């Protein structure tokens, strides 16, 4: 049996190529029964009986004592937490299979043209071998919130910090008693008085330990001269001493702090403090108030909340794509190997570019395989459980909920409600029924041929 033929067994059935066979010779019935008995008994007790039981049980209440009709089904579609599960399962089915198939198609077409295509396929297919538990643990680590732990946020932070300069002194604040800097909203601080040319402004800050300053800070220097100028420094001396609000020898400069001059609520000039803490504003700032904008003190960027309520489902779908793209790729690559190269070459001779060849010839020829992959993935995704259960942290589990997880939670994870659990099981079964019928129809057709 070729891989391609077997591949079709996934969503829809392959072609059993043999014609109707008679037994080699008339076999006695009891021989056939003997060969079939173990399998049929097990199938009956472990698969067929549970289907009937679930349908019956779904019509009874939590502990099975009272008949409730279709109430359990009604509950599923009215209770807000199960409704989230229904909605998320719909999102999964709509998004994940299409995404995986598209990626698989792209990878399969591309790897055909590179020499190390086999190695690439091996790498992408490998996650298929591991458990969803292991994949879940792998991605819990990827999605860890702390950028010093989770790779995703480490990258996000690196990108963010490249484009947005991070604040240098997240915890700094003015010395309330010794300066006239007052909080002015949005994390910024503004002087109550105004600045005059020739009278250097003193902007003392506290709240950071001198040994926690980034880099090797210089000692602060009291500004002097005729311009509009001043000093931003850490008004704190290790070991005590010094006068509050005065630049004492040994006190450290705060470099790179943004200082704005404000007149009537409008910023007229701005400057940054130098290595010695001194800033110089243009003459136009004369008579304005000085403001240290909030960007100087903003908390550091600590990445994206991947597993928070809004992003948890997309994040888990991402891990699913990682696991299953290899499956789609390998199936589609097998289909691609059966595509007649002459057709593609003929189109190229006729002047079609690569995109047209791909769009108009390759994809239509692959359509049957693509459908099989899509359907298989849909069936698979409807029942998704492990990844959601492992990756979603407790606080966002409700937001990531899916039907299979809800079934488990209602019935086993402390819920104890077998009625609703059975109803969800029946719904899952109903969802795969169309595929079951397609399978059977294909098989019947093959028989009639």
């Amino acid at each position, binding site marked *: *049996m070729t891989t391609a033929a077997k591949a079709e067994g996934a969503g829809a059935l392959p072609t059993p190529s043999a014609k109707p066979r008679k037994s*080699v010779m008339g076999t006695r019935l009891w021989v056939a029964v003997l060969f079939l008995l173990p*399998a049929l008994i097990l*199938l009956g007790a472990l*698969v067929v009986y549970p*289907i009937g039981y679930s349908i019956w049980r779904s019509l009874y209440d939590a502990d099975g004592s009272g008949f409730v009709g279709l109430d359990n089904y009604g509950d599923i579609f009215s209770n807000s937490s199960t409704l989230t599960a229904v909605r998320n399962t719909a999102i999964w089915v709509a998004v994940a299979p299409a995404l995986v198939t598209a990626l698989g198609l792209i990878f399969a077409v591309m790897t055909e043209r*590179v020499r190390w295509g086999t190695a690439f396929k091996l790498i*992408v297919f490998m996650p298929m071998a591991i458990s969803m538990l292991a994949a879940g643990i792998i991605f819990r680590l990827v999605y860890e919130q702390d950028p010093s732990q989770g790779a995703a946020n480490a990258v996000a932070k690196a990108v963010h910090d490249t484009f947005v300069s991070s604040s240098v002194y997240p915890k700094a604040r003015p010395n309330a008693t010794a300066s006239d800097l007052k909080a002015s909203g949005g994390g910024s601080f503004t002087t109550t008085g105004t600045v005059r040319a020739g009278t250097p402004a003193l902007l003392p800050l506290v709240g950071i330990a001198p040994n926690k300053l980034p880099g090797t800070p210089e000692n602060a220097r009291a500004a002097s001269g005729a311009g509009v100028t001043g000093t931003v420094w850490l008004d704190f001396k290790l070991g005590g001493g010094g006068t509050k609000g005065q630049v004492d020898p040994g006190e450290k400069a705060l470099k790179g702090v943004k200082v704005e001059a404000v007149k009537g609520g409008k910023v007229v000039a701005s400057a940054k403090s130098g290595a010695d803490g001194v800033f110089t504003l243009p003459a136009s700032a004369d008579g304005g108030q000085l403001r240290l904008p909030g960007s100087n003190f903003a908390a550091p960027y600590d990445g994206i909340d991947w597993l928070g309520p809004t992003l948890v489902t997309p994040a888990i779908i991402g891990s699913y794509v990682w696991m299953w793209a290899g499956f789609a790729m390998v199936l589609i690559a097998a289909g691609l190997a059966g595509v007649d190269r002459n057709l593609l070459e003929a189109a190229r001779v006729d002047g079609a570019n690569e995109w047209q060849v791909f769009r108009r010839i390759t994809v239509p020829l692959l359509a049957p395989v693509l459908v099989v992959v899509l359907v298989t993935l849909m*069936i698979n995704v409807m029942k998704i459980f492990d990844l959601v259960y492992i990756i979603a942290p407790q606080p966002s589990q409700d937001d990531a909920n899916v039907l299979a997880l809800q079934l488990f939670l209602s019935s086993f994870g402390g819920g104890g409600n077998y009625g609703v659990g059975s109803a969800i099981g029946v719904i899952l079964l109903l969802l795969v029924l169309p595929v079951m019928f397609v*399978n059977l129809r294909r098989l019947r057709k093959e028989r009639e041929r």
Partner: protein
Amino acid sequence: MTALDTIVRGKRSFAARVASGAAGGVMRVFLILVALFWLVPTFGLLVSSFRDPTDIASSGWWKVFTAPSQLTAKSYQTLLEKDAITHALFNTVWITVPATLLVVLFGAMAGYAFAWLDFKGRDWWFLLVVALLVVPVQVALIPLSDLFGKIGIFGDIIGVVLFHVGFGLPFAIFLLRNFFAEIPRELLEAARLDGASETRLFLTVVLPLGAPAIASLGIFQFLWVWNDMLVALVFSNSESQPLTVALQQQVRQFGSNIEILAPGAFISMVIPLAVFFAFQRQFVSGVMAGAVK
């Protein structure tokens, strides 16, 4: 074909060739990035599993690039000294091996009957088996926990094994019946004329000839059961739980348990990955055929 090829290639303009060369370069870079994207998550956990717990807590795994001396097998040592974990690992084996062997045996027997034995309603019975291919395991969780409770095997390894056998059989029968049906009739007839019984025929002709399909099925079923968490989560207890369930219980406090989870996940991955690299062909065909589950 090749002659035509060169003519066609020769006619393509210089600009077109430069453009396609550039496109090829972009494609290569893209594929390399994708490959990295696929490797990095696993690599990160692998590195974490070889770091000291204090190092894990204080910095990301990528720090080993600047401080390779951080690497240590301490976490593995601690983990393998925990009785609960080694016990769970044994349970995984005790669940997986019988569940695989039984599915292969019963599946092959039924597959042979459906392919080569004559009995009334054969096609209808086979249709029923095919219908069961797509039944989700979730449907059976509640009914079987009730049934197993009544007969006293709930929480027992036997229950977990039985569940996997039941849900492994439809695919096994389907796959093997289709494969056995391809065996040339003459081979079977010759053996029968020599006076071989059905059992002998099955053991000495059908099974050896069906080896490739049996290998695919066996590998697929083995990995399916080995990697299962849901069934074991419901049907096993603290005595009989496999490694996946034992590890799952540590996930709640992910940050503080990473020194258990990282090496634990890798121990659970070693066998599947070894199977993957040793039997790539069979594995690929098995997974492709069996993804329906």
